[in-house]
C-alpha cells in the first residue's frame, strides 16, 4: 500500500533523487560510534537538531493555551500545567529541553572547535553555527520570561541590565528589548513572546537550512 502510494508520487514527481540527496549517504567509519566509541562526539550536532525538533513541537502545542499578557500569562501557564491532560509533560519537555539543547549545541561547538573542523573550507559553516548558538541563547532568554513568575521577571530584569551595560547604545538596546525604558511589563512580555515564537524561530530555520546544506555539500571532516 505505502509502496504503491510512493510509486504513484514518484512516477509523477521523480522524488527518489531528492530523497537520495538528503538522506542516502554513507556514514564514514571515523564518525561511527560502532567502530570507534569515541566517535560519539560526532552525535552532538544531531542531538541538538533532535532536541530542537522536540522544542518546536512542544512549543507549538503550548501556544494553544499560553497567553502573552501580564494579566493572564501566569494563570494560563498554571492552567495548562495543572488542568490540561499531559500539560505538565509537554511543558516539562519544553522546560528541560531548553536546557538540553543549550548543552548539546555547546558540546557540538566544543567538538568542532577542538577538532579544528572549522578550518578552511568550512569557515562559513562555523560562522553560521555561531549565529545558531546565539539564536538558541536568545530563545532561552526570551522564553524564560514567558511564564511571568517572579523568577522569570527578575531574570529578565538582570538580563536587560546586562544589555544596558553595552557602551553608548546600551540604553537603546534595553528599551528596544523591553518596549519601555523603565518598566519590565506588558510591552516586554508581548515583545519577548513575538521574538521567542516568530522572529528567532524564523532565523533558526533559515540558519539551520544553511548549516545542513553546507555540511552536505562539503561533507564531514576527515579523521584526526
Amino acid at each position, binding site marked *: 500500500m505505502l509502496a504503491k502510494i510512493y510509486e504513484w508520487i514518484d512516477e509523477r514527481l521523480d522524488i527518489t533523487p531528492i530523497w537520495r540527496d538528503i538522506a542516502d549517504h554513507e556514514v564514514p567509519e571515523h564518525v561511527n560510534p560502532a567502530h570507534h566509541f569515541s566517535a560519539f562526539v560526532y552525535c552532538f550536532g544531531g542531538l541538538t537538531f533532535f532536541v530542537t525538533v522536540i522544542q518546536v513541537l512542544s512549543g507549538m502545542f503550548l501556544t494553544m493555551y499560553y497567553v502573552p499578557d501580564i494579566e*493572564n500569562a501566569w494563570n494560563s501557564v*498554571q492552567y495548562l500545567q495543572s488542568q490540561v*491532560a*499531559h500539560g505538565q509533560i509537554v511543558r516539562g519537555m519544553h522546560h528541560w529541553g531548553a536546557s538540553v539543547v543549550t548543552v548539546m549545541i555547546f558540546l557540538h561547538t566544543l567538538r568542532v572547535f577542538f577538532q579544528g573542523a572549522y578550518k578552511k573550507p568550512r569557515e562559513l559553516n562555523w560562522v553560521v553555527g555561531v549565529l545558531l548558538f546565539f539564536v538558541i541563547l536568545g530563545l532561552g532568554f526570551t522564553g524564560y520570561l514567558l511564564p511571568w513568575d517572579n523568577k522569570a521577571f527578575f531574570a529578565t530584569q538582570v538580563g536587560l541590565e546586562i544589555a544596558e551595560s553595552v557602551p553608548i547604545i546600551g540604553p537603546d538596546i534595553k528599551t528596544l528589548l523591553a518596549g519601555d525604558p523603565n518598566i519590565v511589563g506588558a510591552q516586554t512580555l508581548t515583545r519577548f513572546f513575538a521574538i521567542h515564537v516568530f522572529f528567532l524561530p524564523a532565523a533558526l530555520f533559515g540558519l539551520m537550512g544553511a548549516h545542513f546544506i553546507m555540511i552536505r555539500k562539503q561533507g564531514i571532516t576527515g579523521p584526526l
Partner: protein
Amino acid sequence: MSEKKNNQVSRRTFLNYTLTGVGGFMGAAMVAPMVGMAVDPLLQADGEGDFVYVMDEDEITEEPQRKTFTIDQEDGWYESQAERVAWIFRDGNGDILALSPICTHLGCIVDWGVQDDHPDQFYCPCHDGRYDKDGVNIPGTPPTEPLHVYEQRVDDGRLYLGRANPR
C-alpha cells in the same frame, strides 16, 4: 544468497523493520502527550450548571417577558460573569416555560412579537426563522428544531433557571 534462504528475512529488511519500529515508537511517545494536550477540551467533563434566581413566580404572565440573569462562567483560566437571556411565560396549561433566545438555525438571537405579520411568534432577523409561542419552529422557515428550554426550579415562589437544553 542461496535459494533456500529466499523466504527468510534478510539482514537489511530486519534492520529496516526494527529501526522503523523503534523509531516510530519513540516518535509516538514524543508526540502522544502533545496530542493529548491538544485534544484536552474533548476530555474535559461537562460542568453542571448552577441554578440562578431570575424572577418571582407571581410576576410571570402569559405574555413572554425577556429576563436577563448572570451566571458564573469558568473558561479555562478565565473566570467571568456571563449574561444569559430567557423568554419566560406561562403556556396554555399554566406551566412555566423559559425559552433560550438562541435560534436553532445558526445561533442568532430571536425576539418576540417584533414582526407585524406574526405578532405572536418568535422571530429571527438573520434568515427569517420563526417559532410559535411555545418555541416550536414554524415549518418552512430555516430552524430545524424548537428553541431550547432552560432547566427550571421554583423554590418559595422564586424561579431559578439552569442550563438550556434541546427538547
